[in-house]
């Protein structure tokens, strides 16, 4: 699935209204090998996240796994996590994320690397 994707930005150096062909994240991740764990290796603490206004995780996760749900809570899909740690480093709320590496060889398994 290829879709036209636009993004605007208030930075003056940035080219406004630039349009590029953007591959959807679903497609981008579809060729990766994932051995999915039964239990999530990252747990989002909704009671802390609901009070967060920055929500950096939503923009920063390079696999787009954090989404804001209709009720304002944070939805997180651990199954396609690339285990990079960006969310953990950029999250400004102590205790919002319980972050562990997956066990027993689960998680992403790069074939190229």
């Amino acid at each position: 699935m290829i879709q036209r994707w636009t993004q605007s930005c208030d930075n003056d150096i940035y080219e406004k209204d630039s349009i590029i062909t953007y591959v959807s994240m679903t497609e981008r991740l579809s060729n990766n090998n994932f051995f999915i764990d039964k239990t999530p290796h990252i747990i989002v603490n909704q009671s802390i996240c609901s009070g967060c206004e920055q929500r950096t995780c939503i923009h920063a996760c390079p696999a787009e796994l954090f989404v804001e749900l209709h009720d304002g809570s944070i939805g997180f899909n651990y199954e396609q996590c690339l285990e990079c740690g960006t969310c953990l480093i950029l999250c400004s709320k102590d205790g919002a994320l319980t972050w562990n590496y997956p066990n027993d060889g689960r998680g992403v398994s790069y074939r190229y690397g």
Partner: protein
Amino acid sequence: MSTLYDVVVVGAGPAGSAAAITAARGGSKVALIERGIYPGAKSVYGGVMYLKVLDRIVPTWREEIPFERWITKRHTMVLDGSTSVTVSYHDDGWGRHPYNGVTCLRSNFDSWFASKAQLEGVDLITATTVVDVKFHSGSNPSVMGVTLSNSDQTVGCRSVVLAEGALSPLADRLGLSSPSKNHHLTLGVKEVLKLDPSTIDERFGVPHDQGVDIEILGGLSPLVGGGFLYTNRDTVSVGVIISLESLKHHQVRAEYALEQIKHHPSIEPFIKDSMQVEYLAHLIPEGGWRDRGTLMKQGVYVTGEAASSTLALGIWLEGINYAIEMGAIAGEHATRYSEGKYGDEASRQYEDDIKRSFVGKNLKKLRFAPEVVLSNPIQRTLPILLNKTASSIFTVTDPLPKSGLIKTLYRAIKEANVAVVPTIKALLKTFWSFK
């Protein structure tokens, strides 16, 4: 307590396997524990390996490594809008012994390197995550063992080498990581794109076993960082490296910056009609020497990326060679520690040996460079200025007469809207930090 090892190495990447090899050669019984299902399953890198460092560990590496292409062309490409200025170096000699840089797939390379450790008698344990390090009780406690995700038992050992990579959860928990490390992390995202090997040869102008490495500055606006494109045998890898600070500040996605680079008219022809086969992300510690943290405590040695052993500076992008050397030194020290040959001076001796190696010397010499490379003059001003200058020099203005170099440069500076004095200062500072 189960099996007793002299040394347990956490992470079977380049640093971990090097540590396991030197520890085993020192006479230790070694376990090399890897959380992926094979070594390399969790590994990501951004370009070229410089492996002369292996001469003292695996002297036959040139005949043995599962290489993709020997790098014979090195481009530094500065992007702005839809233009680019490229400095290019081609050395056919790099395609022959003793070679310079090489590309490998990490799944192949890391597995090969770990197999060299196995040949030294190292127990390679995959699909196993080390979750904690246990210490003896007492006034000066040393390592007792490690606990694993899939077992309640502690695996006993006398020394531990943490080669767990950039995120370094164990080093963090033990209080060994530098508190400033997280401020100097960048996020690398990369795509591996499949192309016919002969298409790669043609597009990049190289024979089948030679390859090209393109380092990219600019073109990521508003984000701060750099990009790269390099050739494997039948794939090319394209990626961007973004400072986490700018990612947080601008709320623009890293993968969007990757698309920007991929669609730049100077890059797109190299990768068009390719098929994406993998998408990867990884954090890179760019703080260098100043972020190495506590390298050793109570028999626990930190090495490789976990100790910020990368040199990510635009003109030099190295890491695997540093990881191997630092890992090899850590393995030697861990063995001696496990034999009880060290007292209180163990930590200082490891640090001293790192300082004496090329890892310490290079990282220390260039310790001010990382922040300069990510600074505004280099990230914003330089790409605009270079491209505007090149455009005014090379664009023929007939019937208008040529304006001469000084006037051209003046016009480029004006057009780029650059403050002259701060820019000159910044460029001098950059030069100084690389001196």
